[in-house]
């Protein structure tokens, strides 16, 4: 493994026909870290990964591994491992050959290559499938081959491009644990691209939230989850209730209603300025004093997710363990520490 302490991205920018797909991504990745690049589709996260892998040239900026400049090297010289969204297994090669390909390309002696290939295949529990072609494997097995192929070369950095998006829900959970387990067991440094906030929160040590090619927030899962820096991150992190309003002293007046709520301002909110009040459905309490009627109730196991409407027409999403049916009256409350107030104009 190439020993390194830090991998530094310095203003990495990629333009496609005058449009910034990725604008000035600066990030320092420490060895052993698990970084998730998170954002909606088209936010530039895959572009960032491809730039890092060397599959896309940068428009400007640079990438450094300690004191080695990487962005001028072709992908085959960077020593990274990559897991592709569609796995990109070589269809004409057996599992074994797929896994040993990278070792062969690096000129690892045959005996050692055989041993390491066998180890990697054992690691992903595919011993009895080693001689099969990828086409004979299930999606989850193919996924594991792709991971084994990427980690067998002991890359200084493993790049994963939405590796779980083609799997069914149950397998996705299993493989998620598997990826985190491998990351810890092998001491990998991983950059993981996903649009699934839950996946990112559960896997990563640090999240990089992107929107329109720009970094919105970099922080630990907890920071991003509980203290999103702007309304867009909040929207993406599950703050489903985004209520436009205006600041009114310590309170926020929600537009077109008589509702006044008290929340925690994030950023500078001046009196009278337009704001957005954000709260997660699960944080809305049903023991307050704002009257509302349940309109839609979705059964979700222990909880129901309900859409409710207040008397002056404000629609809110709530989650509750109580059994409510459409037509029921509920009383809503907003815990001030869970209700975040963002300046409305911040992009």
């Amino acid at each position, binding site marked *: 493994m190439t020993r390194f302490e830090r991998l530094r991205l310095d203003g990495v920018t990629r333009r496609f026909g005058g449009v910034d797909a990725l604008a000035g991504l600066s990030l320092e990745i420490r060895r052993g870290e698990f970084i998730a690049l998170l954002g909606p589709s088209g936010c530039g996260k895959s572009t960032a990964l491809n730039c890092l*892998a*060397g*599959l896309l040239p940068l428009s400007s900026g640079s990438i450094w591994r300690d004191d080695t400049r990487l962005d001028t090297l*072709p*992908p*085959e*010289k*960077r*020593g*990274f*491992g*990559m897991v*592709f969204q*569609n*796995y*990109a*297994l*070589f*269809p*004409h090669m057996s599992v074994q050959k797929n896994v040993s*390909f*990278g070792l062969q*390309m*690096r000129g690892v002696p045959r005996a050692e290559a055989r041993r390491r290939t066998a180890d990697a295949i054992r690691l992903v529990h595919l011993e009895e499938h080693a001689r099969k*072609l*990828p*086409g004979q494997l299930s*999606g989850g097995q*193919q996924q594991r081959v*792709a991971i084994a*192929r*990427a980690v067998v*070369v002991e890359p200084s950095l493993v*790049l994963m491009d939405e590796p779980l998006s*083609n799997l069914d829900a149950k397998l996705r959970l299993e493989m998620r644990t598997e990826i985190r387990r491998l990351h810890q067991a092998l001491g990998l440094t991983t950059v993981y691209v996903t649009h699934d906030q839950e996946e990112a929160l559960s896997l990563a040590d640090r999240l990089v939230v992107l929107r329109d090619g720009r970094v919105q927030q970099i922080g630990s899962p907890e920071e991003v989850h509980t203290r999103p820096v702007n309304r867009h991150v909040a929207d993406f992190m599950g703050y489903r209730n985004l209520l436009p309003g205006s600041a009114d002293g310590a309170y926020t007046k929600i537009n077109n209603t008589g509702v006044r709520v008290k929340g925690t301002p994030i950023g500078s909110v001046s009196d009278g300025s337009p704001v957005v009040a954000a709260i997660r459905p699960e944080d809305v309490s049903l023991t307050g004093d704002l009257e509302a009627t349940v309109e839609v109730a979705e059964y979700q196991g222990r909880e129901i997710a309900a859409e409710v409407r207040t008397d002056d027409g404000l629609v809110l999403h709530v989650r509750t363990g109580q059994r409510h049916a459409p037509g029921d009256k509920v009383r809503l409350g907003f815990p001030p520490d869970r209700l975040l107030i963002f300046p409305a104009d911040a992009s």
Partner: protein
Amino acid sequence: MSTATVALRHRLAERGVDTQMLLLVPATVFVVALFIYPFGYGLAVSLQPREGGMLAAYQGFFSDAYQRDTIMTTLWIALPAALLNVAASVPIAYRMRGRFRGKRLLTTVLVVPITLGTVLTAEGLLNFLGPAGWFNRFLLTTGLTDAPIRLTNNYWGVFFSLVITGFPFAFLLVLSYLSGIDPSLERAAATLGAGWRQRFFRITLPLLAPGLATTFCLTFVLAFSVFPSAILVGDPSGSTRVISIAAYEAAYVRYDYAAASAAAIIMGVVELIVIAIVLGLRGLLYTGSTAGGKG
């Protein structure tokens, strides 16, 4: 006690017999009328020579070196031409896979010769490569040679003609086979440390090989039945006396229909042998999906 009988229609559908089979009718009629019947007729004619036993026409063909050698002559032109067409298509198609500006124009330029027809090509070749053509005039004027190089009315004339008309065909086929190979495979190979040479020879070429075999067979068949250019820009009584000329002479010069049919049948058999060998080798290759996994 009696089990309900399933409708006949459903039982037939189970075995693949349904009304959609009617879609096969036009093609079947064409194949029978335009291929199987003439083929059977030709075979029958070849077995009824004017004199001698049933196989006399075939014996005549193989005992006469002037006829027999046409097989090797034709193979000697068709195999290298088909091979060159396929081999030249690969690097060009490889460079042209994916999207880039001007791709359509370039493809058009490369494919236009397919529309020209052999006669026009032959005329062009005579004008350009002939003894008094531009090419030789250029060589003579610049003093690179002191006598014109003979590139027409011999083996090379026919060879060039086959390359000009056969290349676009091979190129189009190879390009479509190449586009079918998932580009992420090469990118995966690159991240695993493979340089372009290894990516091409270890990943792309093995996946492309079955397509190349098919392309080779098709261009070979086109080249093997060469007739007009063998006469127009070749040496039809010598080095380019191909098997179709032998058949033509038998039919319309000697009016020996049995011999002509025998030559035609032999031509078909030789083609079949070559194709069988190539497809047999193709069977040894990986011929499955060229996608990298679930899409």
